């Protein structure tokens, strides 16, 4: 780890002000990606701005047909929240499946979506649950938030304050985890809003995406078997020592089936 200056602002406004002051500042959420990166000397921020003491970024509220989850809410808080378990149980279950207990006790929703790791779990929920990402300056539709591998629609210095998830009629998340890292090799989130079905896929591609064929098939007939004819092309999917693109494409269908079955 290289030396840096550590800041702990008490408000979003203070954090924004700090961001403008330094040469190469970095926001610190739960640190589950940033700290290992720093330890390996793969990043060299001049300043770390810890968002952990900002009350505006905390908390889980039921509002406007859904749930608003503060950006600094840790995965374990989402997983164990009675509100989340009652309103969108699939979101609680997704959070419970992230990493391991230590990761869930530290990692945050905001940190996860801002990092936009292609194999992170939350992006699947943000897109499937028609979320709105709130920042210090605007609202961004969940559909527009993830723009590529480790890339988002955020502007430099923009701070995510909360995410509003819409309550679906039913939803479920099925994940095939990497046995080593426990990130998603493939994660599929299925959510039903009236006659609309969303099927979002994380882990398989460079960024979260919607499986259009599957959505169409399920909108017609919301049963796992309806997916028999639908598939995701392996072209452009991720490939590594753990899973080839072919295997990931196959897993998308298997996980989609499981998510549909779990929707009940």
């Amino acid at each position, binding site marked *: *780890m*290289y*030396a840096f200056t550590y800041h702990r602002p008490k408000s979003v406004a203070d954090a924004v002000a700090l961001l403008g002051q330094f040469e190469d500042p970095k926001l610190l959420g739960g640190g589950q990606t940033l700290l290992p990166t720093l330890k*390996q*000397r793969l990043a060299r921020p001049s300043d770390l701005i810890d968002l952990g003491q900002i009350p505006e970024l905390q908390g889980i509220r039921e509002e406007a047909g859904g749930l608003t989850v503060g950006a600094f809410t840790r995965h374990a808080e989402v997983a164990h929240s009675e509100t989340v378990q009652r309103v969108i149980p699939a979101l609680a279950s997704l959070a419970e499946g992230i990493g391991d207990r230590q990761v869930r006790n530290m990692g945050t929703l905001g940190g996860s979506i801002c990092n936009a790791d292609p194999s992170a779990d939350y992006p699947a929920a943000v897109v499937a649950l028609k979320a709105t990402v709130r920042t210090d300056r605007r609202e961004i539709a969940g559909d527009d938030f993830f723009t590529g591998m480790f890339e988002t629609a955020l502007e430099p210095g923009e701070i995510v304050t909360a995410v509003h998830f819409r309550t679906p009629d039913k939803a479920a998340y099925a994940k*095939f985890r990497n*046995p*080593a*890292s426990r*990130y998603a090799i493939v994660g599929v989130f299925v959510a039903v809003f009236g006659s609309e079905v969303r099927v979002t896929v994380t882990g398989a591609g460079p960024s979260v995406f919607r499986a259009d064929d599957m959505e169409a098939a399920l909108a017609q007939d919301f049963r796992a078997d309806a997916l028999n004819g639908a598939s995701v092309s392996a072209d452009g999917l991720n490939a*590594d*020592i*753990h*899973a*080839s693109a072919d*295997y990931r494409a*196959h*897993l998308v269908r*298997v996980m989609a089936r499981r998510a549909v079955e779990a929707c009940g």
Partner: protein
Amino acid sequence: MANPTGIGASVRRREDARFLTGRGTYTDDINRPGQTHAVFVRSPYAHARITGIDAAEAMRAPGVIAVLTGADMETDKVGSLPCGWLIHSKDGSPMKEPPHFPIARDRARYVGDAVAVVIAETREQAKDAAELVMVDYEELPAAVTSLKALEGGAPLVHDDVGGNLCFDWHLGDAAAVDAAFAQAAHVAKLDLVNQRLVPNAMEPRAALGEYDRATGEHTLTTTSQNPHVIRLLMGAFVLGIPEHKLRVVAPDVGGGFGSKIFHYGEEAVVTWAAKKVGRPVKWTAERSESFLTDAHGRDHVSHAELAMDKDGNFLALRVATIANMGAYLSTFAPSIPTYLYATLLAGQYKTPAIYAEVKAVFTNTVPVDAYRGAGRPEACYLIERLVEVAAAETGIDKAELRRRNFVPASAMPYQTPVALQYDTGDFAKNLDIALPLVDYDGFAARKAESARRGKLRGIGFATYIEACGIAPSNVAGALGARAGLYESAEVRFHPTGSVTVFTGSHSHGQGHETTFAQLVSERFGVPIENVEIVHGDTSKIPFGMGTYGSRSLAVGGSAIVKAMDKVERKAKKIAAHMLEAAEADIEVKDGRFVVAGTDKALTIGDIALQAYVPHNFPLDELEPGLDEQAFYDPKNFTYPNGCHVCEVEIDPDTGVVQVVSFAAVDDFGRVINPLIVEGQVHGGLVQGIGQALYENCVYDEESGQLITGSYMDYCMPRADDVPSFTVRYHEDQPCTHNPLGVKGCGEAGTIGASAAVMNAVVHALSEYGVTHLDMPATPERVWQAIRRHTPAQAAE
């Protein structure tokens, strides 16, 4: 049981309170006044010529004390890290043994090879400065896999080692094997890979060097399984420091699995540099450094053939193995794929003729050496996979085929065709215990039940034998060992009856402080809390060989018994004098020294007090004191053996393998502490399951970069990956040639488990026509195997 802390008692580990509450003292916990920190500059290339090193900028960085290179070591006449075992090729020529300098001189030969060391006031300063050391590399093509390294025209890891061939060795009777194959009714064949593994001890390697200018004494504190071996190798061959001026301490060590047997360059560097900079020098590996620089394990590519008669009786076994040595020869590397591997190819079977050829190959990867089991898991995996293939091909039940070919207990001692003589073992009995334990007959019903849930189910066996208790020194010497393999012990009674036992064995997770104390408690009736076990410090203990190869109790424990024999002999003489009886009339009963047929008795405490306060003592016959030393050199290897049975369920949709049950029936000879034995078996099984299903060390085949360089990609088994184990042992077949009758239990789980799991996996997949799968059976490999063998899906 008379003695709650004696032999056979499940005494809880005395060391656990210390370890579980963070009160252990590991090398990195030790800090000295004036201590400096070493950080290594390591090659980012698998193979490169070092054309220049410019340390000027690094030297100007804050806190930097020195930047040292291979050239500085050369100036100081620092030697090459020695190899402890010499193998001769088929043609009688000695193995190729290129130099292995602690810091590379002109060439870097694997990613992570040390190129320079920076010594600074703080670790962070040393890391900062290490980035400023400018090394000019001329990158060279790399030979990464053993198969590619053997190809004509492959890049040479060492210019003077043609074809990258370290040795081409063989064992057994080729002519007899050929003749048997000519008569065979059936031949089973198998190509298999025993993949490379990263050892992953919980505590990373660390070393702290000190030099006392006043006395001229060097001290190295290091994460070692065998401090005396390090002192001998480093002192005599690398740094030229005589033993009486070199102290090596291995304090609490957090796991080794073999990887901390070897003498590593970092140990020599900190010891040498401490004198050079005049201050203590500490180095502690980061986890990434452990992945890159700890000696790896296994990495065999083999072809095996088994000849049978029409009834499935094994006639002959033929094996050809290519073993990856990495870039240099690590301390015991040449012995692993030879005398610890090919000698075990008889397994539990009476196969009359065996012939094995082993080519050892240099590659541009980190050295490969012993890793839990060390050669024996490779042998067991090969035999037991081949037997399973033979059973499938002949249609003979796999349990029955094994039973038909077992060496019968009545044939013990049994001379194998590959140099070993098994002393005891009742292999059929292990199987007889295991079959009902796993309800073998009920498998079909369980498989049907799994099928109803859409799962495949398989059952796999592994009947293993290992050669442990390493080793008779003369035998090892004849086979190429450059060291003895005895063990030392000293049993020191103190005046008030408490005891300190000094052992040359080293505990890095095995629980010696408990088990060894039980030996003393049993023998002399001393409460276990009055017995202290001291190990790991060459300034305290007699010259010992350390812990590896499941040898500590069989060899180290036997040395303690020998020392206790001497204590008892002397104590009897003292007791006879004190009790005014004839020495011949003194009996030891329940730890008390009794005059036969009387109620006159003394405790060892009474005798110890008299030994040190000799007012009523036979001073004209005996010296005062009660403190005896012994060395024990084993007469043979010990042969732990057993039968492991694994059941797996496979999700055909994803390829995920779940181990649903695992039973281990083992013969470890006599068991001193069942609780510790069971713990060792559990740990071993998890490690074996880890190899079968999860762990895989992958280098990029072109660049030689380590792809699995962290836990993001290198998959370790976790608690929720394994079932609750069923562990049984019997004590009917004690070792015949050591005084405790013990055989050793540290590696057994690892040796049997991988084969049992893979046999179960292949069995589950057999309905698709799958006959073999290489480890690890990852979800994708399993899914691909299913897909390859499913015509409809393959066409998709």
